[in-house]
């Protein structure tokens, strides 16, 4: 009879394994199919509980599922992974450390899930992983790694110049970049050009003002949007003649101040355009900070718009994702000022940079100024804020 028993067990094992896989795969599929406005939350909520009830076996599949999940589904999955890990810890069952380490290291997985996996590890495991994250696509893991080395280097007086410069090449967050730059200057008298480090676009052709009462300019295509023709005279606000100007921002964060460059106006829009030259085609992020309403176009395609005034101008607040063609690419930024009279509502300005998904300048991408290809952030000579 034994052989029949074994045969029965052998037949059942794949079935049980299949059922276990199904018990994980099905709720994951449900969590990845979340509908807009929570319209299927009744089934999704049940799936969440079902997934968490599978325990540690569901942890890695849940983290992996974040890879191609939309942001809403990702949060259903992230909370499930966290709940599983918490339950395992309360039950004093060990987490699958080797698998979590492998997951955290693998850049093919979603950054948010990798960070969560990393945080489930012991301090000793984290310390071993950190150096490998210095050039990581995850902004958080990269930051952790840079911070770890930065803390070590700041204790050294002087810190090795090559180590600081190497760390600077990995840093992306302004606070870390500034700290490293300051240390380089203090310890080695090396002046870091922040505009170049971040890839801010320093040289622009600008024109304005154009009328924009109640944000009208966001709905109107003025001539600079149809065709950029530097030197051309255009009809601007109140039928005044406006002309293109070449300007170069000396600001370390690439700020272009329209109040200084085209004058103080209310209910007005101004344009800035730059030509980016790419050695080869590829993705680009145009990141803009501005306290004003704005639109961003790349090669005539609108990448981004936002109608919000005077509520902050955080660097990189607006991100437009696009594709650079090999050769010249025309970037157009439209910045609209409203008519608020408060002292804190008078700024009319922007900063913009072109970078990769980590926030670094893209190798082979330059700015065409006249006939010269300049590194992003470099100012065309002479370095004046405005060239008439």
């Amino acid at each position: 009879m034994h052989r029949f028993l074994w045969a029965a067990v052998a037949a059942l094992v794949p079935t049980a394994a299949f059922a276990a896989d199904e018990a994980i795969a099905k709720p994951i599929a449900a969590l990845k199919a979340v509908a807009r406005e929570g319209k299927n939350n009744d089934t999704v909520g049940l799936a969440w509980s079902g997934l968490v009830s599978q325990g540690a076996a569901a942890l890695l599949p849940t983290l992996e599922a974040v890879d191609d999940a939309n942001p809403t589904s990702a949060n259903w999955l992230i909370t499930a992974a966290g709940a599983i890990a918490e339950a395992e810890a309360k039950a004093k069952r060990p987490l699958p450390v080797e698998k979590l380490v492998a997951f955290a290291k693998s850049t093919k997985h979603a950054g948010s899930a990798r960070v969560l996996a990393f945080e489930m590890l012991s301090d000793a495991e984290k310390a071993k992983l950190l150096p490998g994250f210095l050039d990581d696509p995850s902004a958080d893991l990269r930051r952790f790694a840079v911070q770890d080395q930065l803390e070590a280097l700041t204790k050294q007086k002087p810190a090795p110049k090559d180590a600081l410069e190497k760390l600077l090449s990995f840093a992306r967050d302004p606070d870390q970049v500034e700290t490293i730059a300051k240390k380089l200057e203090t310890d080695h008298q090396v002046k870091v050009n922040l505009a170049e480090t971040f890839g801010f676009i320093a040289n622009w052709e600008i024109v304005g003002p154009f009328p924009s009462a109640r944000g009208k300019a966001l709905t109107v295509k003025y001539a600079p949007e149809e065709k950029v023709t530097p030197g051309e005279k255009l009809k601007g606000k109140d039928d005044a003649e406006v002309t293109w100007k070449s300007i170069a921002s000396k600001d370390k964060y690439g700020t272009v101040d329209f109040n200084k460059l085209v004058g103080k106006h209310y209910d007005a829009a101004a344009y800035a355009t730059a030509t980016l030259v790419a050695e080869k085609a590829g993705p680009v992020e145009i990141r803009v900070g501005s306290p004003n309403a704005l639109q961003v176009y790349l090669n005539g395609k609108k990448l981004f718009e936002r109608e919000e005034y005077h509520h902050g101008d955080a660097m990189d607040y607006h991100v437009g994702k696009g594709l650079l063609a090999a050769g010249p690419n025309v970037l157009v930024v439209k910045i609209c000022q409203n008519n608020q009279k408060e002292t804190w509502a008078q700024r009319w300005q922007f900063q913009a940079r072109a970078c990769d998904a980590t926030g670094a300048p893209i190798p082979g991408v330059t700015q065409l100024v006249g006939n010269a290809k300049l590194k992003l952030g470099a100012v065309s000579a002479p370095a004046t804020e405005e060239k008439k």
Partner: protein
Amino acid sequence: MNRFLPILPLSLALALPLFGGEWGQFKGPNGTGVSDEKGLPTEWSREKGVKWKAALPARGISCPVVFGDRAYVTCSSGKRDDRLHVLCFDAKTGTQLWHRQLNATGQTACHPKTCMAAPTPVADASGVYALFATADLAAFDADGTLRWYRSLTGDYPTITNQVGMAASPILVKDKLIVPMDNDGESFLAAIDTQYGKNVWKANRPSGINWVTPLVRDVAGKSEVLFAGNTGLTAYDAADGAKRWTYKEGGGSIPSASVADGMLFLPGAGVSAVKIGAEGVEGKQLWSAKELKPGFGSPLVYKGKVFSVDGQGFVACGDAKSGKVHFQERTKTAFSASPIAGDGKVYCVNELGLTFVLDAGSTEFAPIAENNLGEEVLGTPAIANGCLFIRTDKTLWCIGK
């Protein structure tokens, strides 16, 4: 999905109505800031009068909420402030029961004083509803089960406020009322508490606004009062229909109070109007600029109006006449709203110093000044005979 059904009764069973104190939303019961509990603490310090304290993982200016034996807190962390935390503690012991994390799906830029954990969560017998300034909204059962989650920015992508949103949701029976006035698509929505689906969604004019709505009962019907840049509007809680508006009742930061048939409106000071079934009746009864609130909302308690502001002023006036009893300037700004119970008014300043006032007094004569020495921007909660004060680092339970 049938295989998951047996799990549901378990999670609901764990979320059955509990007992004890209830301070389930911004400014507690009905948003009044008033507790009916007795024996509340008068004196404490970091070392004295502390029932328990629990470490928090990150910053937050949202208020703690308590329902029965559960206390809930939200926090936000990360260089980009994009890690969102919801924590549940045993209200009696301070033991952390669970901690859930979400990633921000909305924008995270804000004024440095605030953060993404700014709106106050709502707690009820079943669990907690946590809204963040990123417009991420999650409902957890009391045992930490994620009941539902909404990315409101995913649903309505133009939502934006670079100063940082802070208006808090409120609960009206089985509906969570979610204020979402911002520079993009603005609305007031009722979301069903069981599944998180829209029951109704009333469009609002675009414009940032930090006011938390109020609810009142009118002839057995619930009415939501929501002040914004264009005035105060009353909505039928059942279907979101506009019932009446009061253009002079506009606001942008502090929230109004309703007490004794009067509506107390914060603005350049505090003003009072009579409110009836059909809305505001007659002309303004009084206005007192000396009672000007800052970030905190005025408190109406035992016939008096109390307010605190960002310059350190503590002011008190008569609720019926508006006569100002005192306006005293202290050394430090207030962000938290004053709250009251057991005949005492608690005013916590930004450095964690609490002035305990005798509500019966018409003079500024604190009966105690209690210092925790940590920044406090969120309004404390009163429940189970204790004060729950959240700082950036700690949740303090003050009392016995």
